[in-house]
């Protein structure tokens, strides 16, 4: 279930994706989609970065959204036709886990933000565990 349209910019630690909300897109009801879907947009944006950075190994990577902190939603819904820009900035990572600060904008206005923690590369819940064996 791919929600984002394009990966438009990335560096090893930053990523920008875009999507225009379509009437037939998942979660759209009566021409609008709950702003809570931002979380999935954030996760897919981070996944797009990871996939791009590992494009030489297609299919060998997978990830999971583990959690979020400080989710802020300025609106309840997005509407069909809205052109949304989603950004992610990596705050920390190791070989298994990472945290990104993500934001969603429409016409330059920030509508959603959160920090999301993700597992990547087939991580188990041991990667950054203090005291875990190397």
């Amino acid at each position: 279930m791919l929600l984002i349209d394009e990966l438009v910019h990335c560096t090893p630690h930053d990523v920008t994706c875009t999507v225009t909300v379509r009437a037939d897109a998942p979660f759209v009801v009566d021409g609008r989609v709950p702003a809570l879907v931002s979380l999935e947009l954030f996760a897919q944006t981070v996944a797009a970065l990871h996939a791009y950075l590992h494009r030489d190994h297609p299919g060998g990577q997978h990830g999971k959204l583990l959690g979020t902190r400080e989710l802020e939603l300025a609106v309840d819904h997005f509407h069909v036709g809205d052109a949304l820009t989603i950004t992610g900035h990596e705050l920390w990572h190791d070989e298994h886990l990472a945290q990104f600060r993500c934001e969603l904008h429409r016409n330059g206005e920030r509508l959603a933000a959160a920090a999301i923690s993700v597992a990547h590369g087939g991580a188990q819940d041991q990667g950054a565990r203090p005291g875990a064996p190397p």
Partner: protein
Amino acid sequence: MTRAEIYQRITGILVKTFELDPADIRPESRLYEDLDLDSIDAVDMFVELHEVTGRRIDPQVARKIRTVQDIVALVEAELSGAGVAVDS
């Protein structure tokens, strides 16, 4: 920051971020076994430590952290520019 100030700062982060009871936090407290943090919490903590030290915590160093005192030693070393001080 003095070591005591660093300890207070770390304690404040643990209380605020993970809703821990300050009375449960001691220098020797083990993050997992005693304070019930998990690996996702650890990522949150390393992000917070970045705010304190101004430097990204090295994952190799992060993996060695076991106790509150380990965090204090890490922050103290980072702030002094001496690098990592956590025992392996």
